[in-house]
């Protein structure tokens, strides 16, 4: 087992954000976190990355308990592709990627030739070697995502945490990026936890789904067991149809008032609530 998280509770200024979350992701498994805005997806990812102090519960990566481990020990086992990139100096992409080696450096150490070669190699594996000398602030959103993914893979390719990796990506790039990540799971046994906003992407790429609602796990399990029309409707608090195409692909479509739906009745849920 690669990621095991037990009875996790997290509170911010006394407000509970995550309550009693249990999660287990095996080697080579792609786990999608689904939930509405503010349901605790990002917080859970930060807890798994050891960036937040837990109030209760444990997180273990490859058998190592995060509580009490040093930043360096954690960073060599689990890497994170964060959601927003705050203002950055106009570094070259290769300089950004090579920072994935930070955890292995001593006080006065700087990246050497072999670090730059490894960084370039990871970029090549992602078919992004042409970005190496470009200015990180001047490339497109999709290219930035790839560069940050390369940095994460250079850092630790065993366990990868992705916070809404498809945000700001065009339709094509969303699928290409997740395709790449899926390939990593298959070929390198990378365990992935990714928060996604689109249940269709989860249905297509994930092996396992964890549904979060108000910081609690609404449901978790294999995709075909958990992602039923009624569960997805309950998760997003609106009536959603599940359509199976002739090729066996699953698509979720929200119902509008003029289409007859066979799901949970809309009036059972607070459909008009913004979160």
């Amino acid at each position: 087992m690669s990621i095991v998280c037990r009875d996790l509770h997290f509170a911010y200024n006394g407000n509970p954000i995550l309550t009693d979350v249990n999660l287990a992701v095996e080697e080579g498994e792609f786990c999608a976190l689904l939930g509405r805005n503010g349901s605790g997806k990002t917080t859970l990812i930060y807890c798994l990355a050891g960036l937040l102090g837990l109030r209760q519960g444990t997180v273990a990566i490859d058998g190592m308990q995060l509580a009490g481990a040093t930043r360096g020990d954690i960073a060599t086992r689990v890497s994170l592709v964060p959601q927003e990139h705050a203002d950055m100096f106009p570094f070259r992409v290769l300089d950004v990627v090579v920072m994935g080696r930070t955890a292995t450096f001593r006080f006065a150490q700087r990246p050497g030739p072999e670090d730059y070669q490894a960084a370039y190699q990871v970029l090549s594996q992602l078919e992004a070697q042409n970005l190496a000398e470009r200015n990180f602030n001047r490339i497109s959103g999709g290219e930035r995502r790839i560069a940050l993914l390369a940095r994460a893979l250079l850092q630790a390719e065993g366990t990868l945490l992705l916070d809404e990796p498809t945000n700001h990506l065009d339709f094509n790039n969303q699928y290409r990026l997740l395709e790449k990540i899926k390939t990593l799971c298959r070929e390198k046994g990378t365990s992935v936890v990714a928060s996604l906003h689109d249940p269709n992407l989860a249905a297509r790429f994930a092996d396992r789904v964890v549904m979060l609602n108000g910081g609690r796990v609404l449901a978790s399990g294999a995709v075909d067991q958990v992602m039923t029309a009624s569960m997805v409707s309950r998760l997003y608090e609106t009536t959603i149809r599940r359509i199976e195409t002739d090729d066996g692909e699953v698509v979720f479509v929200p119902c509008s008032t003029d289409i007859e739906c066979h799901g949970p009745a809309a009036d059972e849920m607070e459909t008009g609530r913004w979160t």
Partner: protein
Amino acid sequence: MHDTAITQMMPGAAKANTRLKTGLALGLILVLVLSLWIGWVPIAPTELGGIVRVWLGMEAGQDIAGKALVFGMVRIPRALITVLVGMGLSAAGAVYQGLFRNPLVSPDILGVSAGATFGAALGLLMAGSSWLTIQSLAFFFGLTAVGMALVIARVVAVRPMLVLVLAGLVVLSIFNASITLLKYLSDPYNELPAIVFWMMGSMSRAQWGDLRVAMPIIGGSLILIHVARYKLNVLSLGDLQASSLGLNPGIYRLLFIFLSSVMVSVSVAICGQVLWVGLVMPHIARTLVGPNHEEMLPVAVLSGGIFLLLADTAARALTMAELPISVVTAFIGAPLFAYLLYRNRGSGWS
């Protein structure tokens, strides 16, 4: 791609950067030598032999002895301290700009200069305080100001960098108000002018004794910052990314802030406030070699030394009465900064 081709992409591999750094180092030596011969006591390069003989006790002419005194006790220590202070302020500026991910930040953002100036003003007001007392007070209150800003940020404990800027503003205002109060309470004929002149900044008080203090403190801090400079790249990504990459941002930030504050406090203690060096020089370095601190920091340090030495030489050579050095650095630095903003407008800041 072949391995050697990738090695060529390393920041240190660019031949232009190596040439630039060598050029700056040679330029610094050249400016250092030139500044020793410029000033109101005319000393010709040919008189160097005579000066050295006076130092060795082999010659005792009235005229040459005076020149030897000016050369050995005034110009040499002054030039060396000016270079050290310029390097220190520039490095401090580069560190703060990196930590705050903001190219418009100066080393004064956490109130270190205001604190040190307050300490100096306090020393100037206390009857019979020696030069050493004034400098010690300046150093102590400079660090106190930064410490206060750090404690406030620590107590608030959310969004550390933003709160640190605001805490710095609080500390800065308190010390500036205290300085105004001290000025108000001071004797307007003797003490007030002394405080005002201190705040204008001048290298004219620099002596060998100051160099013995400044050399190990500023020099040691510069060396530590230089060897650990790669960490500034990682810290400039912000706490979240630095942590997830395996760096402890709290500890490293504290270390860098401490080293920078020590350098700025010592500088203010020796020569008062010198503006613009810490803001403009890192900016120039970034324009020349890019934002990677591996290359940018040495360039900023060297150009900071050159800039302040040129400014000080101009300050004492341009007019009969010596100009305050901050006047010169501001007159050169501010237009230069405007030009750099214009030049860097397309580098993708936002």
